[in-house]
């Protein structure tokens, strides 16, 4: 027979581990001799403990199950945390374009499109906006098209000390073989 303190801790662990609101029936399946009313009592006592300790979270009943949630006093901080530090994930199209610019710089949009085989206005624009590439000049020849190259931000993003650190095509083949 589990002690009351142990039952509380087990109920707490199960609710915390659940990615969805956890139905009380499932808790009772796992913990021997636990009834729904005893489980409810355990949750109430856990919440009292969290309140007494000034914790930032509580357990609530939602959609027929128990779930941890963060008190609204703190959600402002949480939102700030995520908006400030959104990880930059580049799409496949952006990666391809960036790779071509990195290896062929200075290069033009028409060269990029020739290699990729698709129109690339949108993705070049996005890369400019994200400061991964910059306009570096104009090519000679008809129309004097704009030329693009990579930026300091690009190097920083990929952890490169300089463009020389970029693996050479032969090295890429070796790595990927």
């Amino acid at each position: 027979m589990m002690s009351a303190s142990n039952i509380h801790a087990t109920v707490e662990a199960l609710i915390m581990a659940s990615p969805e609101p956890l139905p009380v029936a499932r808790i009772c399946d796992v913990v021997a001799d636990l009834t729904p009313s005893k489980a409810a009592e355990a949750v109430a006592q856990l919440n009292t403990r969290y309140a007494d300790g000034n914790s930032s979270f509580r357990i609530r009943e939602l959609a027929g199950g128990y779930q941890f949630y963060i008190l609204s006093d703190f959600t402002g901080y949480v939102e700030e945390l995520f908006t400030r530090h959104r990880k930059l994930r580049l799409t496949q199209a952006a990666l391809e374009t960036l790779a071509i610019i990195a290896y062929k710089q200075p290069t033009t949009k028409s060269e990029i499109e020739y290699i990729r085989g698709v129109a690339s206005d949108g993705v070049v624009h996005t890369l400019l906006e994200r400061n991964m590439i910059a306009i570096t000049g104009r090519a000679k020849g008809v129309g004097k098209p704009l030329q693009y190259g990579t930026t300091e931000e690009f190097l920083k993003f990929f952890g490169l000390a300089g463009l020389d650190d970029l693996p050479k095509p032969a090295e890429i083949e070796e790595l990927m073989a």
Partner: protein
Amino acid sequence: MQETITDPQTDSYQVQLDMFSGPLDLLLYLIKQEEVDIYDIPIARITRQYLKYIEQMQTLNLEVAGEFILMAATLIRIKTKLLLPRDESDPDEMDPREELILALVEYKRYKEAAEHLRDRALREEQYFVPPSPVSHSVVKVDLNPATSLFDLLSAFRTVLATRQRELFHQVQPEESSMEDRMALVLNALSEQEMATYRQLCSDDPKRMIAVVTFIAVLELARTRRISVEQSWPFAEMRVYRGTRFAESGPLDELVDYAGVEQEGELQ
């Protein structure tokens, strides 16, 4: 020889391959099994055991077998050197085993470090990390790992490969035969005194070429058309003209893939 090698549970070559991550790993296993001192390896005994394993591994993936075979050659070379009378007057003369011992000791350290890492990974599996209670759609957090340089390189390779296929009808060169590779090796040596293994494979980056060239070199060395030198098991292999370099015989008579290990010195 079966009795020393065939473990009923691992009676498959694939498993045997997985058991040893390389020739040094196999040597460490033998040293432990034979209960000998790593700093004073009885080379003849260990070489005998080692060759038994190689025989068992004959049908293995050739690339791996190649490294195991090179080590066999090294062991035989050390064994031969030990049989030669030592120059007592030269205090600087090295124990022929020294390099091998240093390599084994160094490798052993990392093998042990790898064991510690494995333990940490197992311990880590005991932890259960709860999911965040915050709905990710609310905070719009991107759970994917950040883009790495590797992703960039993969993209570059993909775009080039796709485009190349579209732009050119690439004609696949035919796989080189053993004969061709042997002719190429001999040809290289008629123009220069020495060639490295890497140079001999450099005309074609395909993996199979490296394997076929390697067998071609072994075969030519066996028939003394060329001689092979390696300053150290993993150092670059250098190929020189052999004592019977000039003897021209139809190359195809020499070709016997499967026979390389059986007929070679390894028995």
